[in-house]
């Protein structure tokens, strides 16, 4: 099977190790990965901040770049939710504004083919044990868009439980938002920081070495709070844990 990796602009620029881990993991599972070089950004930051008209060309660009692939895999719950949940809505809004079906028709092909990484592993490949080895205590934070947007449910935990050497400890208040929220972190930084600090304190109470999530944007906020609060915990993307083996530890 051949898939397109939609890495997201944040991962491409700031977290290339997550991209390398996804490539390694999928290749190990027999999936052929392509990285379309023309990819940029899904437009989520624009859309969620109120700039829907600025997000439209980015969504069209996304469809142009990814439309021809059988499946599109992304290691980001929120960018995945943008394509799956909000692209159809952008199409509907354009229609309601009397601009016809063009946008909806352009975006429609990519919507059902876009999968968040853990969803792709469990639902499409049908695996929960990916042959990983990661000898650390880990707590899992289900990010809001993964949890409520895409409904990832138990999939990430199933994958983590099958990792050899990994001890999974439950995070108190796991379902609560970490306070990132894209531009929310800047526009309401006091509340965002308070939410982040509470999330980090909850994580610390588990005694885990690593806090893992399926979205680097949330991890950037949580990780930045962790180092500021000097916790000694590390934020790690789930792809890096799943890619890690005894021979080649990645994280």
């Amino acid at each position, binding site marked *: 099977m051949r898939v397109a990796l939609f*890495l997201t*602009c944040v991962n*491409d*620029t*700031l*977290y*290339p190790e997550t991209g*390398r881990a996804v*490539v*390694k993991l999928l290749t190990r599972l027999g999936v052929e*990965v*392509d*990285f379309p*070089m*023309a*990819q*940029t*950004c899904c*437009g989520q*930051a*624009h859309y*969620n*901040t*109120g*700039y*829907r008209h*600025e997000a439209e*060309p*980015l969504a069209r660009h996304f469809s142009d770049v990814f439309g021809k692939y059988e499946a599109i895999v992304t290691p980001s719950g929120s960018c995945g939710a943008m394509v799956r949940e909000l692209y159809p*809505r952008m199409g509907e*809004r354009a229609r*309601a504004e009397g601009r016809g079906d063009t946008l909806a028709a352009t975006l429609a092909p990519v919507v059902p083919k876009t999968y968040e990484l853990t969803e792709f592993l469990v639902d499409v490949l049908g695996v929960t044990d990916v042959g990983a080895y990661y000898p650390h205590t880990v707590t899992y934070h289900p990010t*809001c868009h993964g949890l*409520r947007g895409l409904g990832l449910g138990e999939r990430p935990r199933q994958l983590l439980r099958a990792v050899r050497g990994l001890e999974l400890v439950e995070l108190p208040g796991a*379902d*609560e*938002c970490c*306070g*990132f*929220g*894209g*531009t*929310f*972190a*800047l*526009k*309401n*930084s*006091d*509340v*965002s*920081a*308070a*939410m*982040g*600090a509470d999330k980090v304190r909850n994580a610390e109470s588990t005694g885990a070495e690593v806090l893992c999530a399926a979205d680097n944007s949330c991890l950037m906020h949580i*990780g*930045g709070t962790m*180092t*500021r609060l000097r916790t000694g915990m590390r934020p790690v993307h789930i792809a890096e844990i799943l890619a890690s083996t005894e021979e080649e530890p990645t994280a």
Partner: protein
Amino acid sequence: MSGTFVGMPAFPKAAHEAVGNQTLRANLRHATHTIRAKRANAVAEVSDWAELREAGKRIKDHTLRHLDRYLVQLEESVTAAGGIVHWAADADEANRIVAGLVKETGESEVVKVKSMATQEIGLNEALEAEGIRAYETDLAELIVQLGKDRPSHILVPAIHRNRGEIREIFAREMSEWGRPAPEGLTDTPAELADAARLHLREKFLRAKVGVSGANFMVAETGTLVVVESEGNGRMCLTLPETLISVVGIEKIVPTWRDLEVFLQTLPRSSTAERMNPYTSTWTGTTDGDGPRTFHLVLLDNGRTDTLADEVGRQALRCIRCSACLNVCPVYERAGGHAYGSVYPGPIGAILSPQLRGTGSEIDASLPYASSLCGACYEVCPVAIDIPEVLVHLRERVVQGGPVTREGNKVVLKPAKGHGAERAAMRAARWAFSRPGALRAGQRLASRTRRLHPRTLPGPGKAWSASRDLPALPAEPFRDWWQRTNGGTGDEGTAK
């Protein structure tokens, strides 16, 4: 809406104060987490919750779609049952009508059932200006009124107060308003409740005029419904000679049968009770039973304008259960006052800027008072997609666009203060539309990464005040991909 909240600072500034107040944070956290857990249990008991939620959504949507017809039907039913219907386009008109009706009775005081609609229009203050004293009889509203405070929560207006603070307020203020607090009052819940009971009983037995809102109005029979936990509402609805109910026009349900849905979803969502301890219904007037005169004031106050917006109108489905407040991580930290409206929390963040427009600083900031985590949508018993409406209203703030105000179609200009952000969004869109430009930017950032400061200037300061920045990698992913031919070639190290 109420003049009470005019001049509120924008949400981030108001929230800043609240976040720093440790007592407030602890009170809010304790209360919201307690109600949240109870609600989850109460909802989990019902096997057909998803169906009930869908039914509630459909009934409300159907009613709103045919609101013109149901309002006329309601007016006919209420009139036929001996009630008198008044129509109020805005807060001022509603206040004028109520004050006039009270004066006609010759009375100068009224007892009140807890009501969001009368809070919304600032009725108590308007009556005060006409020399009429309004006594709140709901325990939490009483605490807020005696404390010269503002409600902080839809269901639990005094959620931000703890027992010690309530004891202080009772001991200090009750004598000003009627029967003083007992000597040596302690902060045990039973003693506090008893003090309130004695203080209020005097009001119930004396008042000739009652003022209420309603949770529902049944169009087919002209019946109004109030659900409550304390029983004070029923006292106000049955003892006075004149009853005046001020109700938002969106509170209609077509038939009694429709109530079966909401009488299940509302109590479980709000107080985590299986059924409301008191469910009172009244239909016009009946000889020898209850008030001899009944007035219904139907309140618009921005509702028809809200109804004209096809994305935002779903906010009018709200049954004021406040479940969204109790799960909202932003409300939990900022508290209700920061929202600058009687409707705080996620529902307030979408309702107030629609009812009042986005013209003021506070209303333009409310659509941003959310991380879009979606917890509010998940718990909403009438499935209001609050994140969707928040984003829709953000669009209205930053891009402007067509809206309906006071029945007229107008085109809003973008709000002030978003110029730099708009420019940044456009620049980002420009770069993201050109993979080459994005790549050049990434490379420049990577090559200069040792020069990057640990704290950011400008708007980025808000980030680095409380969080460290991630270290920039030596090369972006796309360069690695190209250099190693998709990871199949020599890994080497980045130059």
